[in-house]
């Protein structure tokens, strides 16, 4: 065969050339290090600084949190001779027995100990149903959705509050991680549809709908959550007929939901703006009315684009639940802080904070991982019109 390797131009007709695999890229850890960490002087400098920083921070933390930490109660406490206190943490590291001693309160607040199984049951049911929804391989999605969105809310309401044969537990006794989850879940589950409606309202041609949506969104976004919570706490009762009382937790839920919805509305509006006119026209030309068009064509695409921003907002809302402390509710963070102010446990603030941070981090990291996998799953690839 003729040697054509020196011929610089012209179409190649050698069929064997089609078989060549892509050029080999660097392999092995050393090559990887060189390519990624030491590719330029600046990169090398950054790598060294990062390593120094980690060396400065990580080992002391590990020593504090694990090696020098106190994990077990002293013998007298186990035998029930006396209660535990900060003095039992004789090692120089973290005092984890503080968490162990108070864990019931941190998780359930002042919910009566004998009734806590109800909270656990609600949690297990919710967790199971949500997992069933999120994991694609698990069948019975339809039944699951009916359970999750219709049956479970009613069931949970009954289990948590009591009545009809169960001991009534006032919401004033709710607290800790349970309260945080209740506020976050109820708030977010209600805020998402409300936010979508507000976003659609803001883009509506109907002047009244448009104006009301804009006013609500802009008002709520213009004031801090604390203000909204105070206002919900103080002002909601004023709208009700005199003599009726409204549960403090319910007031907070209303404020929190509206606040989160306003932010979600703006996020969803961003997604809606990214959908071209052609999609609306394509749907309209097939005879789809407004609601079918939104539900089947526009929102699925707009929400898909907005997933990262929606998850970001939800994460933020989850953290913001700590602000309910300002109206006197004992959410997770507040109850841990209160615990370390106890005379027996003076000096456990840091331990409490680290514990809280770890729990919040696990929740939020889980959410963001799921959102990433969801985005991948929904990516039908390729350019869209």
């Amino acid at each position, binding site marked *: 065969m003729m040697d054509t390797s020196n011929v610089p131009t012209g179409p190649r007709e050698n069929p064997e050339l089609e078989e060549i695999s892509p050029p080999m890229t660097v392999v092995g850890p050393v090559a990887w290090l060189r390519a990624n960490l030491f590719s330029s002087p600046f990169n090398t400098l950054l790598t060294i600084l990062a390593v120094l920083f980690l060396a400065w921070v990580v080992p002391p933390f590990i020593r504090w949190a694990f090696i020098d930490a106190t994990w077990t109660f002293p013998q007298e406490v186990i035998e029930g001779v006396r209660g535990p206190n900060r003095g039992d943490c004789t090692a120089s590291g973290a005092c984890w027995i503080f968490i162990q001693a108070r864990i019931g309160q941190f998780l359930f607040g002042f919910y009566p100990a004998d009734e806590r199984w109800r909270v656990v049951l609600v949690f297990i049911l919710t967790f199971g149903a949500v997992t069933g929804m999120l994991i694609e391989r698990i069948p019975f999605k339809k039944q699951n959705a009916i359970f999750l969105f219709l049956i479970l809310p009613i069931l949970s309401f009954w289990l948590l509050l009591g009545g009809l044969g169960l001991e009534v537990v006032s919401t004033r006794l709710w607290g800790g991680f349970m309260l945080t989850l209740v506020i976050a879940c109820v708030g977010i589950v209600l805020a998402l549809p409300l936010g979508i409606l507000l976003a659609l309202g803001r883009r509506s041609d109907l002047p009244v709908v448009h104006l009301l949506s804009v006013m609500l969104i802009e008002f709520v976004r213009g004031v801090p959550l604390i203000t909204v919570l105070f206002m919900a706490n103080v002002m909601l009762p004023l709208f009700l007929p005199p003599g009726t009382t409204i549960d403090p937790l319910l007031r907070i839920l209303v404020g929190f939901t509206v606040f989160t919805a306003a932010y979600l509305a703006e996020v969803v509006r961003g997604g809606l703006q990214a959908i071209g006119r*052609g999609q609306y026209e*394509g749907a309209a*030309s*097939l*005879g789809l*009315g407004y609601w079918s068009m939104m539900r*089947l064509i526009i929102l699925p695409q707009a929400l898909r684009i907005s997933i990262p921003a929606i998850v970001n907002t939800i994460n933020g809302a989850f953290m913001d639940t700590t602000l309910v402390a300002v109206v006197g509710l004992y959410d997770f963070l507040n109850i841990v802080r209160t615990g370390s102010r106890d005379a027996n446990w003076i000096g456990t603030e840091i331990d409490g904070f680290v514990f809280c941070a770890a729990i919040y981090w696990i929740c939020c990291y889980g959410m963001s991982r799921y959102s990433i996998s969801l985005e991948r799953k929904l990516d*039908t690839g390729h350019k*869209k*019109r």
Partner: protein
Amino acid sequence: MSASATAQALPTEVQSTDVMISMTDVHKWYGQFHVLKNINLSVHKGERIVVCGPSGSGKSTMIRCVNRLEEHQRGKIAVDGIELTRDLKNIELVRREVGMVFQHFNLFPHLTVLENLTLAPVWVRKLPKKEAEDAAMHYLDRVRIPEQASKYPGQLSGGQQQRVAIARSLCMNPKVMLFDEPTSALDPEMIKEVLDVMIELARSGMTMICVTHEMGFARTVANRVLFMDRGEIIEQNEPEAFFNNPQSERTKLFLSQILHH
């Protein structure tokens, strides 16, 4: 122009006397700009109209008024006896009967081809899913891409996407099909496959209005060719007469520009 010019021309006389689309004294303004001026057009059942004219002359605006993607401000438009007014019910009724194919396909990228096709039959016509799917496969067959049913639009070529768009409209069993420059966003080698599908559709007796600059297609398929300029219908005639013996100066100028380059 395209290869379809060689196909056997369809007869130009119209069989039916039923009026499918009637536009009388239709005007439209964008702000102060008068886009449509005194449009009078009636399209009979089974008639195939090709609309041509320079860019910005209002061709798209006119056919988009027929399914109310644009609102006219004066005059009367009726489709199959249903008048288009502010009444949303009427608008949705008309849109069920009128299929539209766009320059940029406007397929739904988050749905598979099959889902694109069954969506409107299921949600608008309330057909059972199975029936809608059978119909969809039938139309995919007719546009010659049954094997693409489970792909997403983003995975198809432009010509294939446009054929899916045609099939999607056909799944609604429309009485009229509107085409707005269906081939002008396509690479040359894909134009023919789309035009062939349209010719085939014309043969089956579909009432059609096509905005296109494919003059070969116009000669083969049209009963009537319309020339628009600056918002007016300047001239209309049977294709032979229209191309060989244009009356107005503007038509002659337009034809000379479009045919000789």
